């Protein structure tokens, strides 16, 4: 925050007003900030006509200010827009901080222009608090972990790593192609595009889904604190994971203490079950079993 951490270099400190800031870094000022942390607009629609009339009498009443011990300030003001009356509840965090003296001086400036009439602190008409947002990191970590988990697969089982159901798939395919050819050849009926030529991409993806289901492990009796990352950490040692699904409450987003782990190979899934069923994890014994196929 001092004058040196700036976007430019100071060529002539005597002239440059920020030269003042450079020289005065030792001298600091104390400022108090009201940091807006929440806005609540509440429509006062429940008020009856009589109540509204009453309220109009004390229209001039200044905003209700409440300061809590933990430095939180709550301001309730009434705002009328047309016929509707809003009760605006704004929450501030009071913050004291040390800043360079010129900054402290500027903090004491009088407001001007369109803000002349505004009271001290952020005005509700110009300053609002937005929805919570975050910096969504884009990393290639996922790829890395996949590689790692590949390396973690014990060597002796590496031979079976490739497509254990290749044979089944081949059978299914030839059957499909037989069906398709018979349909085409005999009575030249309409054939769904995905069934033509022995089932193309769509058929494959369907198969993939089915296979995924078969390789799913159900984990229950989980600790509530365990999240997806923990589960990945725990289960990836037994083979390549394609999906980790922790069941959460729709509203509270809290874990419901069970999860599904999809492995790329059925062997890996079986290995995981054999190793982790009854495993003590976060003071609870895990139940790890095959997931039952969805009943429909």
């Amino acid at each position, binding site marked *: *925050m*001092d*004058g040196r*951490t*700036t*976007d*430019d*270099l*100071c*060529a*002539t400190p005597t*002239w*440059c*007003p*920020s030269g*003042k*800031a450079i020289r005065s870094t030792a001298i600091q000022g104390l400022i108090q*900030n*009201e*940091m*807006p*942390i929440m806005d609540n607009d509440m429509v006062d629609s429940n008020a009856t006509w009589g109540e509204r009339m009453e309220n109009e009498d004390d229209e001039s009443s200044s905003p209700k200010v409440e300061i809590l011990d933990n430095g939180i300030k709550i301001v309730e003001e009434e705002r009328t827009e047309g016929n509707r009356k809003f009760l605006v509840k704004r929450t501030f965090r009071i913050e004291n901080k040390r*800043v*360079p003296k*010129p*900054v402290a001086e*500027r*903090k004491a*400036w*009088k*407001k*001007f*222009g*369109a*803000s*002349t009439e*505004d009271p001290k*602190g*952020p*005005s509700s*008409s*110009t*300053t*609002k*608090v*937005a*929805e*919570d*947002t*975050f*910096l*969504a*990191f*884009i*990393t*290639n*970590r996922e790829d*890395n972990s996949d590689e790692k988990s590949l390396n973690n697969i014990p060597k002796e089982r590496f031979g079976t790593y490739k497509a254990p159901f290749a044979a089944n798939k081949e059978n299914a395919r030839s059957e499909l192609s037989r069906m398709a050819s018979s349909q085409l050849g005999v009575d030249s009926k309409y054939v769904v595009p995905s069934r033509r030529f022995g089932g193309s991409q769509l058929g494959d993806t369907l198969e993939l889904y089915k296979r995924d289901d078969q390789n799913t492990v159900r984990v229950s009796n989980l600790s509530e604190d365990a999240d997806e990352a923990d589960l990945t950490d725990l289960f990836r040692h037994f083979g390549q994971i394609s999906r980790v699904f922790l069941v959460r409450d729709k509203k509270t987003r809290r874990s419901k203490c069970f999860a599904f782990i999809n492995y790329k190979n059925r062997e890996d899934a079986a290995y995981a079950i054999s190793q982790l069923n009854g495993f003590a994890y976060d003071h609870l014994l895990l139940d790890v079993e095959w997931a039952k196929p969805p009943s429909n």
Partner: protein
Amino acid sequence: MRPILLHGHERAITQIRYNREGDLLFSAGKDHSPSVWYSDNGERLGTYDGHSGVVWCINRDSTKVVTGSGDNSYIIWDCETGKQLHRIDTRAAVRSCGFSYSGRALLITTDQQRGYESEILLFGLDDPTQINDGEPYLRIPISKDNAKITTAVWGKLDRYLIVGHENGEVSQFDATTGEKLHSVTEHRKAISDINMYKDQSMFVTASKDSTAKLFDADDLTLLKTYKTERPVNSAALSSLKDHVVLGGGQEAIDVTTTAAQAGKFDARFYHVVFEEEIGRVKGHFGPINSVRFHPDGKSYSSGGEDGYVRVHQFDQSYFDFEFEY
């Protein structure tokens, strides 16, 4: 993080700038009231009222503010009180303006308009007659064969200017003689913004050709390229981490003709050296027109076509984040 929304402008934001300590945030918009805010809590300090057209640019030294407008004038204001100190009429719309680091000189560029060519005007502020009479000590005309100036900033030690042109050219002019020292055309479309690194050794350009590029400020060598898939309206370099943030989105004029999802109005963070994207922040519902890091690198602000300025304080996760290489 919960961004603070500054809603003081009724129309699109054109430019935002921090002052040197970063405690004040200036915003200019297509309405006629450039504003100044306390950057830490979003409190509006005031508005500078007096323009009658689009305000294209805003710049400051610590006591004065300069704004350039589409009403063919620029105004120098007293930062503290919002009073007009000087109002100077120009022949065409003022596109960019800036005080030099020392505060001794003022840079103004004008558009190519009504038969007048695009110009760079340089005023010495030690000599009050230059501003009073509107007569610059140096006038660099950009002949009509060359593309007009879209943005300009001061270079190292106030010795030269870095200028961005509409055809994607970036050039460097000597600030005392007006001689063109270097010129490169690495971008294919108009340069929309230039931001100097804190030590003025390099700068980043944003361009409508969907890229931002990093140049050496001395000889305009192209150092890095940051690619996106939408026009980049603004780019800024962090003073704290090796990050560059790009703001943009499709042209406001095209927004209604394409799906809302395709807008891609998020601010995007890239690693300066590896040119790889680090992360994105959503929020604006229009293209971002101007984006700047706080001088301490711990927060950043963006102003968009939607008329909002959003001030973001980074979470701890941003400071903990280490780029893997």
